[in-house]
C-alpha cells in the first residue's frame, strides 16, 4: 500500500510541482512548443510517456549497479549513468520503432512522423537523470516519507516520476497550445508573434507554479 502511495505521490509531484517544461524548461524547443493541434500533442505525449517509462525501466538496474559499486567519485558516477541511460534510451527507441512497425502500424505512423522530436528530446534523458539524482530528496521536500529510505532512488520512484513527467509534459504542451490559440486572436506586436509570445506565456505560467510550491521571490 505504501508503495502505491509513494508511486502516486511522486507521479503527482512530477506532473504539477516538478513539471518538466515549467520548472526545468526540459523539452522546450520551438517545434514542440508550436505544435498546432491537441490531437498531435496527445499522440506525441503518449508516445513520449511510453518512451520515458520503458527507458526508466531499462536504465534503473544500471543506475542501481553503478550506485552500489561506487565506481569513482559521485560526479563520475553521475556521468557513468548518464551514458548508460542514454544507451538505454536509444535501445528503447529502436525497440519501439521495430515493434510498432511490426505489430502496431497505426501507432507507427505517428511514431515515424515524430521520431526526430522524440529521439532527441532532452525531457526523456533529463527526467530520468533528475529522478536518479534526487528521487528521494524530491519526496522528502514535499514532506512525504518514502516507504523505505535506502539512500538511492527506488524503481517505484523512478517509474512514478517517469510517468508523471510524461503526463506533465503533455499537459504543459496542451496549455501552451491553448494559450497560443488565444494569443493568435489578440493584437500582439509583430516582433512578439510566435515564439516570443509563447515564451512569455510559459514564463508567467512557470512563475505561478513557482509560487504554488511555496517559494517567495527574493527580496
Amino acid at each position: 500500500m505504501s508503495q502505491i502511495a509513494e508511486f502516486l505521490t511522486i507521479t503527482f509531484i512530477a506532473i504539477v510541482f516538478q513539471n518538466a517544461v515549467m520548472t526545468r524548461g526540459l523539452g522546450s524547443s520551438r517545434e514542440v512548443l508550436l505544435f498546432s493541434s491537441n490531437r498531435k500533442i496527445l499522440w506525441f505525449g503518449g508516445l513520449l510517456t511510453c518512451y520515458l517509462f520503458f527507458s526508466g525501466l531499462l536504465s534503473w538496474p544500471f543506475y542501481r549497479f553503478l550506485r552500489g559499486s561506487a565506481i569513482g567519485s559521485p560526479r563520475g558516477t553521475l556521468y557513468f549513468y548518464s551514458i548508460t541511460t542514454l544507451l538505454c534510451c536509444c535501445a528503447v527507441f529502436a525497440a519501439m520503432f521495430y515493434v510498432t512497425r511490426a505489430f502496431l502500424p497505426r501507432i507507427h505512423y505517428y511514431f515515424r512522423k515524430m521520431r526526430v522530436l522524440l529521439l532527441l528530446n532532452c525531457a526523456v534523458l533529463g527526467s530520468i537523470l533528475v529522478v536518479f539524482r534526487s528521487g528521494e530528496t524530491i519526496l522528502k521536500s514535499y514532506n512525504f516519507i518514502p516507504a523505505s529510505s535506502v539512500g538511492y532512488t527506488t524503481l517505484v520512484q523512478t517509474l512514478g516520476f517517469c510517468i508523471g513527467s510524461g503526463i506533465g509534459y503533455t499537459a504543459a504542451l496542451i496549455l501552451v497550445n491553448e494559450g497560443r490559440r488565444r494569443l493568435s486572436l489578440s493584437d500582439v506586436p509583430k516582433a512578439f508573434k510566435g515564439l516570443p509570445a509563447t515564451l512569455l506565456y510559459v514564463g508567467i505560467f512557470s512563475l505561478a507554479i513557482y509560487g504554488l510550491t511555496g517559494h517567495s521571490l527574493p527580496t
Partner: protein
Amino acid sequence: MNLEKLRIHKAHSRWLEGFFVQNPVLTRGLALPFAIVVTNNLKYGVAVSILMICSLIPCVLLSRLVGQRLPKWPMLMICALLSMVIIMMALPLVTPISAEITDTLGIYIPILSLNSIISFLCLRHRKNQPFLLALVDALTYSGGFALALCLISALRELWGANTIWGIPVTLPLKIGGLQIAFSGFLVTALLSALFRAIERCFRARIYRLSNPSAGKEGSFS
C-alpha cells in the same frame, strides 16, 4: 519592386546566418532549456557554450560524412552518443572556470548531448551540402548559441545579482527575481523579440535602398 539587393543580402548572409539572422536560440528557438535555466550566471553560460562548441562541430561533420549511408534516426543516435562522449571528455575545459560548476549545472551537462541544434544541423547536412558549408554552419551556430547564452546570462547576472563574472558591480537596481528559472523564459522572449525587430528593420532598410520610391513606413512586411 526591386528585390535584387535583398536577394544578394540573403545569399551572402547564408554563410553567417547562424550567428545573428537565424540565431539558433533567439530566432530559431532551438536548445531553449539551456538558455532558460542555466543562464543565471555568466560563468555557466560560457561553460555551456564551450561544451556546445566542442560537441556540435564533430557531430555535424560526422553526419556530413556518414549521413547519406544511414537512415535518419540511427544517424541521430550515433550523433547523440558521440556528443555525450565528447562532452564528458571536454569537462576539464570548463572546470577551471569554477570548481563547483559541474555540480551546479548537474543534469544540464549530460542532456546537452540531446539538444535540438544537433538534430537540426545533422539533418540539414546529411545530404548534398558542401563540406565547407557544414563546417561553417557548425561554427556559426555554436557561435550564435554562445552569443545568445552569454547575452542572456550577462543580463541576468548583472541585474539579478549586481555582479558580472562574480565581480560586484554597482547598479542602482537589483532585481533578485532574474536569478530564478522562470525569468529565463521572460528574458529569452524579450531578446528574441528584439533580435526579430532588428532583423526586420535591417531587411526593411535594404529594401528601401533598392526601392527609393516605395520608401513609405510600413510598406515592407
